[in-house]
């Protein structure tokens, strides 16, 4: 008699000792059947190119739902257009939090847009998770525990280039072209900080441009005439292509560092002219869908199948589609880790405890790690150089992880 009772008693004791295992806890936005995720993206207006990311993420979650959802719950991905206008972002974020009652805000896009809702999200204690901007200010768990970035931040990347220049060409004369907004200025700051106090002497020319300008040819001519032999190119894809071509055509042959945002072979280097981009150095953390290196890569093959089935309208050459896929996979992992405790608190807790989580559309050697004091998921990048057909990785994976 006692023998049969023992396992029952043991089971009862176990259930009493670990109540959390048997209970489900939900915050607004989560239930037995669904998880509501909110997002703002510019689907209209001058930044509508980035809308591709929102569409890729929506497609990813359609795939997840087809597979049965996350721990049996369907994902309801609600994405609203903010036209890249901060007042609209504020309105849409409030709608998602107060009216649609989402569990969290995910991958809202744009530095000014996220700045506008930064205080609000933290005051409301709703996760502002994996924001789609590389600005450095999102890694501040002490003051803003509910906000977390995802991609390597711009200053980190710029510092990597600065370090490389100091190591390989300490007497360089550097020219910088940058977009005159938050993103461009953030890169510039990181670059200057990375060069240290001698940046005043090393940077001999700086030229900015506005997104509304047709070409940057004039700026390239200005930079060339400064006599610089190193060029740091902080531009978005269209202007990057123009800059690469203009530099080559004008006969200027500096050591050319290109920011990560515009390093796609198919969408930037090819229009510029592959032969004109030989020698361009950039850093990468995500696989480029147009780079021949990954033509037979199994992860990219899976990605292509995903695109064909769930996101057929999108452009296969657009690296935003790989970015969107990768960041959505990260959220999927976080939500999986939450199990049945789908509270906002737990979402942030799980997001802050990713230990070398690997997604195969990221470059080999780059993994996602976070901790309660480290809100920068991806801090590793690798330098690569373009040889005329594809990028060749060189050096080691440079990581800023503590």
């Amino acid at each position, binding site marked *: 008699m006692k023998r049969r009772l023992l396992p029952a008693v043991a089971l009862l004791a176990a259930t009493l000792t670990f109540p959390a295992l048997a209970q489900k806890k939900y915050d607004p936005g989560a239930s037995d059947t669904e998880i509501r995720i909110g997002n703002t993206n510019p689907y*209209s207006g*001058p930044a*509508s*190119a980035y*809308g*591709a990311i929102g569409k890729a993420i929506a497609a990813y979650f359609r795939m997840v739902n087809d597979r049965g959802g996350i721990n049996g719950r369907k994902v309801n991905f609600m994405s609203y257009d903010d036209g890249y206008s901060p007042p609209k972002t504020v309105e849409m974020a409030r709608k998602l939090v107060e009216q649609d009652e989402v569990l969290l805000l995910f991958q809202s896009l744009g530095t000014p847009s996220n700045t506008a809702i930064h205080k609000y999200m933290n005051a409301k204690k709703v996760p502002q998770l994996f924001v789609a901007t590389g600005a450095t200010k999102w890694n501040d768990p002490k003051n803003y525990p509910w906000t977390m970035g995802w991609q390597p931040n711009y200053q980190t990347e710029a510092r990597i280039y600065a370090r490389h220049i100091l190591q390989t060409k300490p007497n360089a004369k550097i020219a910088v072209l940058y977009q*005159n907004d938050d993103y461009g200025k953030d890169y510039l700051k990181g670059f200057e900080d990375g060069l240290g106090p001698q940046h005043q002497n090393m940077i001999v020319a700086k*030229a*900015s*441009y*506005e*997104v*509304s*300008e*047709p*070409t940057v*040819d*004039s*700026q390239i*001519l*200005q930079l060339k*005439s400064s006599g610089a032999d190193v060029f740091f190119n902080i531009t978005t*894809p*269209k202007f990057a*292509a*123009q800059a690469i071509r203009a530099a080559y*055509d*004008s006969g200027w042959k500096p050591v050319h560092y290109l920011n990560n945002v515009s390093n796609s072979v*198919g*969408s*930037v280097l*090819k*229009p510029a002219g592959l032969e004109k981009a030989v020698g361009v150095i950039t850093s990468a953390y995500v696989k480029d869908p147009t780079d021949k290196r990954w033509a037979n890569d199994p992860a990219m093959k899976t990605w292509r199948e995903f695109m064909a089935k769930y996101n057929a309208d*999108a*452009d296969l*050459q*657009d690296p935003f589609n790989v970015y969107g896929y990768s960041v959505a996979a990260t959220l999927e992992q976080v939500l999986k880790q939450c199990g049945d405790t789908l509270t906002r608190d737990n979402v942030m807790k799980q997001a802050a405890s990713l230990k070398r989580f690997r997604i195969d559309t990221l470059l080999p050697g780059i993994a996602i790690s976070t901790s309660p004091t480290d809100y920068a998921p991806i801090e590793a990048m690798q330098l690569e150089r373009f040889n005329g057909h594809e990028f060749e990785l060189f050096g080691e994976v440079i990581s800023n992880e503590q």
Partner: protein
Amino acid sequence: MEAVMFQLLAGLATGSIYASLALALVMIYQATHLVNFAQGEMAMFATYLAWSLINAGMGYWPAFCLTVLGAFVLGVLIERIVIRPVENAPVLAVVVVFIGLLVILNSVAGWIFSYTIKSFPSPFPPALGLRYMSPHQVGALLVTLLVLALLYVFFRFTPLGLAMRAAAENPVSSRLVGIRVGWMLALGWGLAAAVGAVAGMMVAPIVYLDPNMMSGILLYAFAAALLGGIDSPGGAVLGGLVVGVLENLLGAFVIGNELKLVVALVLIVGVLLVRPSGFFGSVQVSRV
């Protein structure tokens, strides 16, 4: 000194971009007395059509001609279907319709062709290049001047051009002399669209083709057209070249890149204050 030369010529090259779209704006103004804010997007859309044809295997010049023709037809259709119903509405209401057209074309282009940039081929042989200007920049400038010449001849020396100008200037009297005003308007739109298509195909190889290609250029073209005089094609071209050179020189040598646009605009408005109808615009005289 060489730096100045470079910037000057680069300015001429960019200026010819502005000039070509400004020509389309002047064209539509001469035909309708309205400035069509959607002109840039129509040009962009036409360029995408050309790109699709070339991508499908057609040669450059056949695609070019087909696109210009197609743009003409598109312009006529837009006038008949979209603009005709608001003919008698207040001017500002028509402007809002133009804005509606602008956002529709921009959005649809982005939807169909996506936002990644596309290269557009240049038909000009390398031999055309000068020391400071690429073959395409020289070619684009020459094409702009050619279009200008054709427009000038058309409006000044052909009966049809005269009829169009009359229809825009004084529709009532024109009808009395037998001019089919409605068709003149449609023709004007068609021609403006065609000029815009040429502009787009000249511009795309320089700035790369994407749905937002023309939005920045429209602003400069608008300023250039008014600077030169909104009813003067020659003025528009001159205005475009002036704006291009001015902006480059200001940015490189005077005020820096951040504020060059502001200063350029202040200067342009300043010129307009002194000559309220632009360089070559006809002074508006109205009988009281």
